């Protein structure tokens, strides 16, 4: 089923006209009502009227997380404060959080985008959605909530944590759709198995997961454990929250709601736009947002855009799952390493738990990578030489993936920190030395 066929299956030519009209309108709105944007536009020597074609978007200035921090908290709002009905913030783990403000119209757009996405993975008004995303300043919880309510699903706003209770509710309420971050999902599965939950008796139809990077192998693992297909949700607080892009039943990339959010791919070093199909940093512009229009936001997420009609019938452009962040990319001895590559290598080992931690150090002016991996009973052997062999094997898999020699340390099970939100996979100790 398609939630909004008119928008989701629009002809490319029609969509481009709509996007251009909306782009001109939003640029004008930002320029006239946000002093910070007026300054950015003026510095770049561009006026909203200069936008004649969609390609002219490339002349507009970028917005970065730093820009948003400079005007913290409400400096990006383009309407009078009384029209803002809700605010959310990013987690603020890397500095001051960034704030996102929504008018009633913005909340409608958000609900619409999430409703489209939930329908992509099969949600109907018959479904019972257990939303383990946190309710609060984090956008994850409310985004899913609004989308589910728009469709008319029954939503269980259980939020994150209380893992045993999650399992009990899942069983007692007959949850049909689960929403979680990949790392919390894996943790949940682990606890469910300890509690002796029988998945065959569960009525799970699909899983929506997001807010974190994942690999194909992690998805497979989640699908295997929960015995249900898992679909990707993408979004970010600065743009709206979850709902920017979601995956359809083909599980082959996420459809961007491009009538509301205009995507571009740039080279993060040169800042030049890259042609379709090339891998680079995703840049997003909100085309319809009223409370806080955002022009060319640099997401720092690495992906690829692909156009062409999807088997699901939608014409919305697709992005690949995020395969890296321009900022969690580790430069080890000059080589770019993404945690997702390490994860991919680890999941090639049978019997390995997908819990790991990457530690970068610089002991003798030379970068070293240590990967802590939890051993499991499938992997453990009574022979030292076999254990050393397993460690070497993992090291070789990683070497094949990233081209660098690393040191793998097997640690005892359940000793690496589990997350109930975003997992801390990388510890870079180099800057403190």
């Amino acid at each position, binding site marked *: 089923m398609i939630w909004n066929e008119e928008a989701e299956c629009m002809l490319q030519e029609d969509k481009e006209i709509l996007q251009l009209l909306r782009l001109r309108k939003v640029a004008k709105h930002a320029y006239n009502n946000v002093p910070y944007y007026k300054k950015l536009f003026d510095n770049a020597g561009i006026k909203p009227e200069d936008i004649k074609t969609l390609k002219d978007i490339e002349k507009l200035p970028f917005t970065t997380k730093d820009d948003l921090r400079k005007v913290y908290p409400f400096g990006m709002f383009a309407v009078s404060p009384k029209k803002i009905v809700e605010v959310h913030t990013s987690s603020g783990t890397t500095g001051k959080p960034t704030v996102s403000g929504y008018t009633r119209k913005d909340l409608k757009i958000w609900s619409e985008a999430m409703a489209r996405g939930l329908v992509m993975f099969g949600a109907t008004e018959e479904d019972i959605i257990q939303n383990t995303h946190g309710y609060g300043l984090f956008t994850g919880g409310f985004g899913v909530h609004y989308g589910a309510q728009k469709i008319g699903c029954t939503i269980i706003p259980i939020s994150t944590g209380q893992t045993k209770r999650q399992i009990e509710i899942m069983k007692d309420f007959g949850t049909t759709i689960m929403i979680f971050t990949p790392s919390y999902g894996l943790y949940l599965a682990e606890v469910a198995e300890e509690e002796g939950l029988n998945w065959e008796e569960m009525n799970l139809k699909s899983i929506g997961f997001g807010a974190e990077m994942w690999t194909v192998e992690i998805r497979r693992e989640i699908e295997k454990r929960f015995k249900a297909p898992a679909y990707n949700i993408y979004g970010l607080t600065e743009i709206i929250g979850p709902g920017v892009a979601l995956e359809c039943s083909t599980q082959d990339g996420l459809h961007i709601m491009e009538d509301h959010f205009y995507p571009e791919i740039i080279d993060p070093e040169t800042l030049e736009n890259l042609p379709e199909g090339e891998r680079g940093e995703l840049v997003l512009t909100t085309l319809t947002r009223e409370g806080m229009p955002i022009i060319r936001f640099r997401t720092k997420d690495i992906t690829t855009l692909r156009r062409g009609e999807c088997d699901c019938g939608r014409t919305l452009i697709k992005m690949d799952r995020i395969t890296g962040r321009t900022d969690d990319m580790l430069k080890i001895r000059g080589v770019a390493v993404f945690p997702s590559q390490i994860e991919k290598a680890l999941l090639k080992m049978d019997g390995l738990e997908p819990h790991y931690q990457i530690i970068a150090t610089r002991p003798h002016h030379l970068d070293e990578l240590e990967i802590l991996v939890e*051993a499991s009973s499938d992997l*453990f052997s009574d022979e*030292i030489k076999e254990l050393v062999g397993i460690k070497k094997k993992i090291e070789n898999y990683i070497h094949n993936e990233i081209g660098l020699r690393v040191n793998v340390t097997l640690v005892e099970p359940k000793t690496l920190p589990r997350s109930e939100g975003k997992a801390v996979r990388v510890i870079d100790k180099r800057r403190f030395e």
Partner: protein
Amino acid sequence: MELKIKQLSIFLENRKGRMKKALDVLEKGNVNIRALSIADTSDFGILRLIVPEPLKTKKLLEENSFIVKIGEVIAVRMRDEPGGLGEILGILDDNNINLEYLYAFVEKKEKVAIVLLHPEDIDGGIKALIDGGEEVISAEEIYRL
């Protein structure tokens, strides 16, 4: 008579306090260790134990998040004097049986020592030792020590 002794092997990180934690679990579970050895590398170690109730103890350790495997070893009573062990190893050598590791302990009451052997071929090892005139001790007796 069961001649294969069940041995627990526990995975330990080579980190301060890990061995103590395992032993604390055993103490709380009132498990009296009959024999113990540890093999280690710079990163990790394997703690090998002989206990009276191996299956129950395995479960106890697993409940405390340890990785545990059960393996088998042979127990042989030997003279507690120079050359006692050499004699036993000689028998295995003569029969071309590879030994992966061994550890021994002294039984005070009886003035004998007991060696625990883990050959690649455990059945072959038992046969060779018995044929060679050694006293292979039953599992029952070891657990009861």
